[in-house]
């Protein structure tokens, strides 16, 4: 028995194993220490002409998944912005692309991942309000500027964070715009509001609900999840109730198209009204004509009607194809970030804090959206409004 046991009780094989384990731990610790040392030595020494070293911005968008018609144009316009900026300024800024698939938890994880890369100085996105809500605390810890090209829920900029910005107006602007049009222009007496149980959808639904009710319009409030694809029973209920307008502040345009189809199938005469989530190709293409005459509001104007935007749009069409309405705000957001990085670098100190300060101090007299860009104290863009569109002949047409 003595062969198997030495005084430590481990046996000769055990001793060898123990030594191996110690060696493994020690070498791991040394390796980590070496990595840590090398990281900190490259992290903070950028200075004025430093745009030659690695500078990146990240984008967090629902590139694949159900909201791909939102995320893909955002990504492509961001890519275009980076390309054009690099070409004009001779820089080599890189765009780190991350995909949330419209999942809030993933948005938070991706923010964490971007933040851990010290070369990332600003983040474009996230896009959906629920994603922003999850990602903001993570970004706050790192003090990195986060500029959303599409999140409209009002309370996102009311939480006291100083690193969140958006280039689109909020739903407490969209709500009144919508409600006024529904009550005055469309003269509705009874309105059905169906929210999609998302943070954005319920928020906007609540705003419009309250306003309409205060104007003595009868409001019926319903709710369906984003994963529902069969609205037949709901539409039957709707038909029995005969509303004038059905308002759907949904994030997924394909669902809106499906609802329109089934409303058509059951001969429901109500006018369909969507929020900004409906302004994608799918709303028209997937509906087989059922969305003809439907309205939607959007936080950007029809950029094809803005002369100054023509060259950028032409460049986009050449490289990426059709222009989705969600794209141009992403271009503006990216440019804001890039210009801020450039100003920070020129002032001699390139860091997340200085970039953040420069973003907050942004004063662009003009932008792709036809409006100047400046942020108020809460990070919301100043002076933005919502625009109304209607589907006519299979196209979204601006309505005044």
């Amino acid at each position, binding site marked *: 028995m003595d062969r198997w046991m030495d005084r430590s009780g481990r046996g000769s094989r055990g001793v060898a194993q123990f030594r191996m384990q110690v060696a493994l731990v020690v070498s791991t610790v040394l390796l980590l220490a070496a990595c840590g040392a090398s990281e900190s030595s490259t992290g903070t020494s950028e200075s004025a002409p430093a745009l030659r070293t690695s500078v990146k911005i990240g984008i967090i968008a629902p590139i*694949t998944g159900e909201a*791909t018609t939102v995320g893909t144009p955002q990504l492509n316009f961001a890519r275009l912005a980076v390309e054009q900026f690099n070409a004009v300024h001779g820089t080599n800024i890189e765009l780190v692309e991350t995909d949330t698939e419209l999942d809030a938890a993933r948005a938070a994880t991706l923010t964490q991942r971007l933040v851990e890369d010290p070369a990332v100085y600003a983040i474009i996105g996230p896009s959906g309000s629920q994603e922003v809500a999850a990602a903001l605390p993570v970004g706050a810890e790192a003090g990195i500027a986060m500029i959303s090209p599409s999140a409209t829920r009002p309370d996102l900029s009311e939480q006291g964070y100083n690193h969140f910005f958006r280039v689109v107006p909020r739903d407490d602007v969209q709500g009144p715009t919508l409600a006024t049009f529904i009550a005055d222009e469309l003269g509705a007496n009874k309105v059905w509001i169906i929210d999609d149980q998302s943070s954005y959808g319920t928020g906007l639904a609540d705003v419009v609900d309250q306003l309409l009710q205060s104007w003595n319009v009868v409001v019926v409030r319903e*709710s369906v999840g984003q994963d529902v*694809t069969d609205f037949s*029973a709901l539409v039957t209920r709707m038909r029995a109730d005969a509303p004038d307008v059905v308002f759907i502040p949904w994030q997924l345009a*394909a669902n809106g198209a*499906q609802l329109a189809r089934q409303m*058509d199938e059951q001969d429901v005469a109500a006018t369909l009204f969507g929020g900004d989530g409906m302004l994608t190709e799918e709303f028209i293409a997937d509906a087989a004509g059922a969305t003809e005459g439907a309205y939607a509001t959007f936080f950007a104007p029809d950029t094809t009607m803005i002369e100054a935007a023509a060259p950028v749009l032409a460049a986009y069409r050449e490289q990426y194809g059709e222009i989705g309405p969600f794209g141009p705000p992403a271009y503006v957001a990216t440019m804001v970030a890039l210009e801020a990085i450039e100003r920070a670098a020129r002032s001699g100190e390139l860091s997340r804090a200085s970039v953040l300060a420069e973003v907050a101090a942004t004063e662009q007299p003009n932008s792709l959206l036809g409006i100047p860009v400046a942020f108020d104290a809460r990070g919301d863009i100043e002076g933005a409004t919502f625009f109304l569109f209607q589907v006519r002949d299979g196209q979204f047409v601006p309505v005044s």
Partner: protein
Amino acid sequence: MVEQLPQQLVNGLTLGGLYALLALGYSMVYGVLRLLNFAHGDVFMVGAFVGHGVLALFLAENGGSAEAAPMLPPWAIIAAMLLAAMLVSGLLGVVIELVAYRPLRAAPRLSPLLGSLGVSFFLQNVVLLIASARPRAIATEQVLSPSTGLNFGGAQLAPVRLLVILAALALMLALHALVQRTRFGRVMRAVAVDRDAAAMVGVDVDRVIVGTFFLGSALAGAAGVLMGLAFNRVWHLMGFTAGLKGFTAAVLGGIGSMPGAMVGGLVLGLAESFATGFISPTYKDLVAFALLILVLLLRPAGLLGRTTRPKV
């Protein structure tokens, strides 16, 4: 309120038909193998994608429209979609049985159950990798007129709904005839009653099981195509919800019983539609599952199920 009834009936029958087709697959497999095949919903999903692919193929050949220069009349295109989906799904079911369940036949019951979950995730992710997470639209209006269809006392019966209801009914009747009137059906019932005894009297149990999987999965594939046509969308996660509903319907009607699966599917579909119509869409699932619990409390084996006590 009451004026909704005829239309909600139509809605409920459409959903019910789909759920019944799915529930049949669950019940059949449970009957012969005492196994809950959680991959069944994803076989349904694959069938739906196959249907989408076939339709896209025909539309592409006609330059995007079935009316442009129709190679085949619309009903033939739909038949092609159904047949292709049923074939592919059926074969997929057979392959799954061979690969995932047969090796575990002697293992404790939990193992093939977990295996079926694994197959389910595998299928979902394979389709995700191939087709991406973007839902694919099915342009039903190219093969079926999107008109409001017939009007039955206040209910609009659109052509696509009529198709779903009739096709589901036809498939169920065909299956019933197959199970009750053919030799294979008799053998299948024998294996469901007592697998070992059937083996002892010379039944090739493996062949019966393969056949059962093929039939059940083919029905799921057909249901996938029908759902795609009715609701215009296929995506890689559609099998999860549909599978859950199908499983619920099977249990509601009595797992292992085929008439039970049909009744369970219908009851579930109607319950969901009525709950949405007369209460609220937010309560739809609550009502459906509360109904399930209630039925199981009163009849633990399901509506048409039989509690079999082992006879010694």
